[in-house]
Structures are given as structure tokens and as C-alpha cells.
């Protein structure tokens, strides 16, 4: 439940867990293990509670994304096929039923993006891929 101090309303763990879409204990675990920054604290009666303002949540989102990329990089380094499989996990089908709401990727440099678009739309990539995968069931058209 949000905490009100004067004119300011502070979001607490109740709002943070909804923002991240995980349980409270998971948020605390991320904080205690340094996966996300430690939030500011406010005194609330005899206790001190974490508060999660919007700017903090943005920083935490970036930290989580970085953490996940690093995990994937480690998975690639150790070449564990299970970690490389984007749909692998305890239940390989648990999250793949419906395509997720799309978020834009962090863009590469404008120069590389333009070169990739050129490669795609001038037909070069089609020729390259077709020559790489010669199985009839993987050919376009």
C-alpha cells in the first residue's frame, strides 16, 4: 500500500511487486543480492520501509535487463543448450502460448541499422540464407 507523506505519495513493495510482476520475496531477493539497486527507505512507525518511486523503477528495470543479458551471455559462453533455448525452463511451454507485448530492442548504432536494412531489403540476406540452408523445407517460396 502506498505511503503518504505530506503532499507526496510513495510506492511501496506492494506497488513494486505489481510493477515487476513477481512476488515480494523475489523483489527483496533482487535487492539483497544487488541485482537491482537498494531503494530509499522511509520511517513508518517503528519500522523502516523501502519506497520505490518511478525514477527508481526505471533504474531497476534497466538493471534487470542488464542482469538478464549477462546471464544469457554466460549461457552462450558455457554453451548449455538448455540455457540457449529461449523457450526452455521448468515448463517449456509456460510462456509461449501468446506472443508478448512487444518492447523495442535497444537499437544498434544508426550506421549498423542502416546497413542491416540495406542488406535485408536489397535481397542480399535472402540469397545468403538460402545458400546457407539448403534443405527444401527451409527454403522460401
Amino acid at each position, binding site marked *: 500500500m502506498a505511503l503518504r507523506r505530506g503532499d507526496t505519495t510513495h510506492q511501496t513493495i506492494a506497488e513494486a511487486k505489481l510493477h515487476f510482476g513477481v512476488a515480494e520475496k523475489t523483489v527483496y531477493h533482487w535487492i539483497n543480492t544487488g541485482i537491482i539497486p537498494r531503494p530509499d527507505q522511509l520511517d513508518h512507525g517503528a519500522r523502516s520501509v523501502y519506497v520505490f518511486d518511478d525514477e527508481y523503477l526505471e533504474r531497476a528495470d534497466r538493471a534487470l*535487463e542488464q542482469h*538478464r*543479458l549477462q546471464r*544469457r*551471455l554466460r*549461457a*552462450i559462453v558455457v554453451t548449455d543448450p538448455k*540455457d*540457449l533455448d*529461449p*523457450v526452455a525452463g521448468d515448463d*517449456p*511451454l509456460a*510462456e*509461449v*502460448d*501468446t*506472443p*508478448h*507485448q*512487444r*518492447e*523495442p*530492442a*535497444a*537499437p*544498434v*548504432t544508426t*550506421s*549498423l*541499422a*542502416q*546497413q*542491416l*536494412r540495406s*542488406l*535485408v*531489403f*536489397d*535481397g*542480399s*540476406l*535472402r*540469397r*545468403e*540464407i538460402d*545458400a*546457407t*540452408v*539448403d534443405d*527444401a*523445407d*527451409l*527454403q*522460401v*517460396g
Partner: protein
Amino acid sequence: MDDHLALLVLAGALGEDELGDRAATTSLWYLRLVAAVTAPPQTGVGPGRLSRLLDTAAKGDVDDLRIRILAPPKPVLDVLHPMRFARETAGVQRSSRLNLLAAETLGAARHHGASFLVAAPNAGGPIEAVAEQLGVAIRVLGGP
């Protein structure tokens, strides 16, 4: 979407206005993309334009892109599990003469009620007629 657009989505090289709000590709389009990115220079066509581009681009850029291609972040691009729509794929293949790549594409589109986004160089061919029969919309990006 096809392998070409999947590459551009993972690179953040497509404008927001060019795509819908949900982006996904099938396992076989994804396989084509990974095959191109991971092909050793001495096989097939040798070091093609994609390989050269990835070899010469800024290292940080390329490293991030390789990670995204080999393990696509789900919120950016879903690689759909074929088991979810295997019945639709099998049905498409049974009723048409399409290969697995095209049959899986239309099976996924039917299952999700989605349209198929394809880059102009991959557009055309027998999949279009079958898609029309099945009521699956095809949208071509980058055409003339």
C-alpha cells in the same frame, strides 16, 4: 514475421510504425536466421555480406546483437514453440503443397489469429495463395 524482419527487430532497426505491438517468429524462420549468423566462413557461400558486416561493425554493437539473436528477449521477439500449433501446421501441410517453413508460418498465424509480416525479398510464392484461402493476411514491408 520472417527471418529478415526478426533480424531488424532484434537490432532495433525497424520503426515503431512499421510493426504491430506484438512481434513473433516461428522456429524455422528463426533457424534460418541463426544458420546465417553462425555459419562458419568456409562453408556454403563463405563470408557473405552479413558476416562481413558483423565482422566490421563496432564490437559492442555486434556482441549485443549476437546475444539477442541467439537468445531473443521475449518482450522484443517471441520465438513461438511449434508444439502449440502443431495441429494447425499439420493441417496446412496436409491440405497444401507448402514446405514446412511456409506451413508452420500459416499454422502459427491461424492459431494466434495473426497476420504474417514479410520483408519484400521473401514475399511472393505459393504461400500467398494458400494464405488467402485460409484468410491469413500477409503484409509486405520494404516493397516498391
